[in-house]
């Protein structure tokens, strides 16, 4: 019980940070809406320019959900660690009687929950009202929420894994930018994966990224052949990434240099 409270304290810090920087939250909603608008017009033009596998109304609902999920589940531990490694204050976190990974996980969980509520919900409502997103049944709805929770975990762990590289590189922003760019392309956040040629999609499916956006959408829209399978693949990637990040962390610990500053 004590332990749980300890962890919860980190989540609270993350949540509180979200509420404190209200301007950031506002601009977060702004950028979600801008990307919704941009993708709406791009896909409208694409659909008008050729014969696609699905009509525009179906595609736009996928694209809108993708934008919402992608924007609401982003994590940024690279900059957090980058700052602390460069200034040397990372020792404060390392001194605590709690492993770095749990501190970061629960802190980011709080931040992400804030984002999910403040950015995700308004954007989802816009999608439902204007972009044909539709409302799932109660069962699919609950399954979707669980799937989003898994996406959130994937996003946090992935960010954690790349942030471990900061111990070598000393900078975080470029690692994060590269990660989000690649993830955006492979996950379905930019293009519905059913429009991607089969052989290319097979390559995408070798990465964890489709589990982050395409997977919850397939549950929301009821296009998943087996919901259990979708959860299974999401969980598999979570386990793999946890192991990978643990390996990198072990290496990083040997390498760890604290800059006096």
């Amino acid at each position, binding site marked *: 019980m004590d332990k749980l409270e300890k962890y919860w304290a980190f989540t609270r810090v993350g949540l509180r940070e979200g509420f404190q920087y209200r301007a950031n939250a506002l601009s977060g909603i702004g*950028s979600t809406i801008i990307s919704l608008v941009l993708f709406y017009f*791009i896909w409208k033009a694409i659909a008008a320019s050729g014969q696609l596998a699905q009509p525009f109304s179906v595609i736009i609902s996928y694209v809108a959900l993708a934008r919402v999920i992608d924007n609401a589940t982003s994590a940024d531990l690279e900059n957090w660690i980058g700052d602390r490694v460069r200034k040397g204050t990372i020792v404060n976190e390392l001194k605590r009687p709690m492993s770095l990974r749990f501190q970061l996980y629960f802190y980011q969980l709080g931040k992400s929950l804030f984002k999910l509520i403040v950015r995700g919900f308004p954007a989802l409502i816009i999608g439902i009202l204007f972009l044909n997103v539709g409302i799932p049944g109660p069962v699919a709805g609950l399954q979707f929420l669980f799937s989003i929770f898994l996406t959130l975990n994937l996003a946090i762990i992935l960010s954690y894994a790349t942030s471990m590289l900061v111990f070598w590189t000393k900078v975080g*922003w470029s690692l994060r930018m590269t990660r989000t760019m690649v993830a955006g392309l492979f996950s379905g956040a930019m293009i519905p994966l059913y429009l991607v040629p089969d052989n290319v999609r097979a390559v995408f499916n070798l990465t964890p990224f489709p589990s982050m956006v395409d997977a919850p959408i397939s549950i929301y829209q009821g296009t998943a052949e087996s919901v259990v399978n979708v959860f299974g693949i999401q969980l598999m990637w979570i386990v793999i990434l946890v192991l990978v990040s643990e390996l990198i962390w072990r290496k990083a610990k040997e390498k760890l240099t604290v800059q006096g500053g």
Partner: protein
Amino acid sequence: MKEKMNTFRKYLGIYWYYFKQYWKSRLVYKTDFVLGATAQLTSVFVSLAFLTLVFTQIESLNGWTFDEMLFLAGFGGTAIFAQNVFFFNIIRLGEEYIVKGKLDRFLLRPLNPLFQIYADSVHDNNVPKVIANFALIIYASIQIGLTPDLVTIVYAGFSMISGMLVAASIYLLFSSTAFWTGTSRNAVWLIFRISNFRKYPIEIFALAIQGLLVTLVPLAFASYFPASFILGKEGFETWKLITPFIGPIFFYIAYLFWKLGLSNYSSTGS
């Protein structure tokens, strides 16, 4: 006139001094350059991959072929990222210069404070992105079989410089809101998002967005208008004609806004 030339030479000399200083400190974090350049190049590749995937589904987008879209993306990209190398630092106005009080130091020196902010950093990790985008222009031109006459080449050159000033003016205008809000990061993030609109033919957007792209965020002048003139596309004739000359006007307006903000500025005292 002669005095103006002397001032210009003096500023150029000082810039060179800043530039050398910057490189000395730059060498401390070599990986920052390498990784930054990798990130920037990744973003070019990802948008190319997106375009390629989209064009597996269609022949042309609103009458624009794949190669023409590459040309459009390359032209705007070259203009924006080339000016980023020298004029990007203004986006840190709020967080770095106003809140931390660094601007006060600049105001004490007998040099233009805006110049000092620009000269304070060089965003060299944009250079690979400029090269990649310029390569796109060349590649697309060859694919399309473009044979520009002298007028078109001169037009392209002037439009490119004008486009750089347009991009610089947008950053300056939006960053200057930091004089009132204390932060420039959020305003600039919105610009980053909106700047993605430049990669597509302007006609596909609603009229309100087209309006935005020629006024508050006039990226159409750095991307769509010049590209469609060079490629010989129909429409927007007047807009295309003023494109090579509009950059300085936008930059002057943004500079006036910056000066208004500066006169409104009071130190944080930190």
